[in-house]
């Protein structure tokens, strides 16, 4: 029951925002509906912890540990980004008379993001992921400036090109399932039960197609070129959603399929995942060194983290799977915080260039302090949660004998850390360029930042029992040996 509410409320909110008399309070409707959706997804997670899974419509809408975690992350980030959008869009957007459209579209995006992990059938996951892409394209180009439209166009062509490729992948998967006697409707659960009897050739081919098709949407190198453009040109609340969870959701589908392959005799594919993941981390780490725009910087850091999660999944052990899901959780909460902070910097100073921001900690202590903390957290410094999950991934890699991969990964993480801290150092300290009084950040933005910072602080030093059990449950679905 709670699951149905969590999934359908964003859709209802989109409808309400569209109704003419309610357009002026679109922000309130969005925040209200999404917070209830967040509360009900916590209830769903509780139900999953008790019973192992929660079923709303059998065969269509079901969640297990892994999907409950993703649903929870999606509704958390979407709610906070909606709160942040209130003040940000009023002050930072040129399109104030079209704001109801923004919220309408935003709710549709939130709906698509929540429903993908809740779908039990892989074919519907494809449909949902394409819907996410379409709604996100419209939001990236929302401002209508030439550079925003250019970013939206690049995003559209590259990621929609992946759509037919992954569609064929899912059709081949369906063929594999049915040709090996899977009688009832195809679900993730049924697929993993059948993984050892499906023809390995078909399974490999299906995985390859889905990996390429969805890899464009995750932003894995070398298909990442749209990501920094889209994530830097979109309105900042959208960047938080895109970077924080929109990349995680297709990756969730890839990991689901990877778990099915790893359970079949074709386990070698794990090593390929390690190689491809390392390639993404490497590309991102070196691009971070030369980046000039702080929103692009956080976007490249997303490519880095997606690569790390893929590497962890490729190690294919229980410990590494735990590290992978923990990294997913920590990346989502930390990266959205980073973009809220970047949005505040943009609101106060009106520039995206790193070189034009100097001495922020003196001109605006709140924004500067938030930037310092979130960059330390996203770069992986202790005592923040990303440090813990990266450390556990490296340790799990060593224990499973992937010594070379761990050495490369550790080096690249250090390069990325140095790159981020060097850029942020210049922004925070030094002499402010002008002494003109800066614009005050709206209250809703400050609220969103404080709320988003709470889990980042807590999870770094203490993982509450229920969170730990949910992560363990989610890691079980990723398999491994």
């Amino acid at each position: 029951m709670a699951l149905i509410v969590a999934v359908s409320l964003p859709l209802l909110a989109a409808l309400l925002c569209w109704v003419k008399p309610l357009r002026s309070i679109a922000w309130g409707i969005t925040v209200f509906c999404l917070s209830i959706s967040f509360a009900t997804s916590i209830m769903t997670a509780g139900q999953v912890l008790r019973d192992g899974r929660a079923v709303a419509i059998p065969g269509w809408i079901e969640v297990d540990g892994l999907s409950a975690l993703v649903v929870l992350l999606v509704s958390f980030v979407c709610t906070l980004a909606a709160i942040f959008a209130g003040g940000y869009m009023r002050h930072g957007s040129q399109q104030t008379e079209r704001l109801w459209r923004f919220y309408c579209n935003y709710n549709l995006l939130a709906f698509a993001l929540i429903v993908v992990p809740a779908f039990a059938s892989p074919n519907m996951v494809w449909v949902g992921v394409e819907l996410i892409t379409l709604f996100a394209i419209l939001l990236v180009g929302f401002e209508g400036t030439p550079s925003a439209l250019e970013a939206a166009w690049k995003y559209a062509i590259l990621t929609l090109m992946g759509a037919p490729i992954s569609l064929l992948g899912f059709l081949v998967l369906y063929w594999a399932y049915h040709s090996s006697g899977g009688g009832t409707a195809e679900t993730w659960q049924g697929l993993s039960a059948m993984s050892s009897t499906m023809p390995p050739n078909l399974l490999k081919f299906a995985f390859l197609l889905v990996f390429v098709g969805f890899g464009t949407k995750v932003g894995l190198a070398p298909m990442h070129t749209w990501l920094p453009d889209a994530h830097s040109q979109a309105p900042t609340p959208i960047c938080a959603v895109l970077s924080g969870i929109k990349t995680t959701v297709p990756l969730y589908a890839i990991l689901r399929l990877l778990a099915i392959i790893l359970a079949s005799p074709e386990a070698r594919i794990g090593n390929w995942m390690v190689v491809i993941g390392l390639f993404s981390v490497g590309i991102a780490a070196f691009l971070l060194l030369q980046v000039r725009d702080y929103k692009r910087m956080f976007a490249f850091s997303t490519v880095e983290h997606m690569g790390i999660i893929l590497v962890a999944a490729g190690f294919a052990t229980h410990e590494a799977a735990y590290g992978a899901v923990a990294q997913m959780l920590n990346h989502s909460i930390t990266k959205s915080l980073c973009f809220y902070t970047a949005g505040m910097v943009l609101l106060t100073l009106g520039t995206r260039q790193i070189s034009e921001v100097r001495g922020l900690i003196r001109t605006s202590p709140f924004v500067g302090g938030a930037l310092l903390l979130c960059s330390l957290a996203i770069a992986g410094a202790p005592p923040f949660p990303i440090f813990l999950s990266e450390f556990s991934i490296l340790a799990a890699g060593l224990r499973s004998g992937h010594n070379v991969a761990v050495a490369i990964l550790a080096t690249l993480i250090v390069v990325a850390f140095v790159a981020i801290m060097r850029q942020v150092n210049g922004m925070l300290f030094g002499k402010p360029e002008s002494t003109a009084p800066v614009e005050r950040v709206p209250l809703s933005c400050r609220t969103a930042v404080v709320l988003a910072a709470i889990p980042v602080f807590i999870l770094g030093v203490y993982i509450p029992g229920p969170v730990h059990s949910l992560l363990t449950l989610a890691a079980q679905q990723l398999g491994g040996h």
Partner: protein
Amino acid sequence: MAGAQTQLIEGLNALSAGLILLTAFGMVATRQVQGVMRFFVVQSAFLAASAFLIGFDRGSIHLLALGVITIAAKVIAIPWVLKRTLPGDLYERREINQVINIPSSLLLALLLAIAAEFLVSPLLATTPDPVIHVNLPIGLAGILIGAYSLIARREAIPQLIGILAMENGAFFAGIAIAPDLPLIAELAIAIDVVLIAVVIGVLTRNITQTMGTTEAAAMSELREEPPPWR
């Protein structure tokens, strides 16, 4: 004479497969926006024909529904939606600039079709079904050729049609390998395809209004700057 009928239908299916491949080549070889659009509509019609043939032969309601959905979405809805959302001059006898000239493009498309045959040959070993042996390689070839025209063309509408042609390829393979896909999934996929056309159409209109061109090559403001040490 059920056997003779099946053989005839499989022959007709192979014929529409060949014509689908030919229309894919046609899209690569055409220089005008309107021509590319016509080839796409013809290709979708052959796709629907193949769904009707196989659906009739195997008594599959799903495939007959897929045929109807294809006609409704791709032969009627998408051309209509694009006509409505886009300013007329985008259609009028426009020549498309192409990165690689047409004879070499056709040669590359031919190589891609042969590559598709090789790529799927290990999969075909798992099944004796003659329809899969025809549809899967041709479907994959359609996807690869569509992807090629997407990369080689630098104009909005031909790029969109490239994506839709790739989708046709996936559907054509799907007729053979996933004939009893649940109807809800099929409908959802079809609606998704129409939405892709709508979203790209709207985006293209906004781009023409703001920048006055739909040449993707003109959009190059966003890129990585050279590193400071160079």
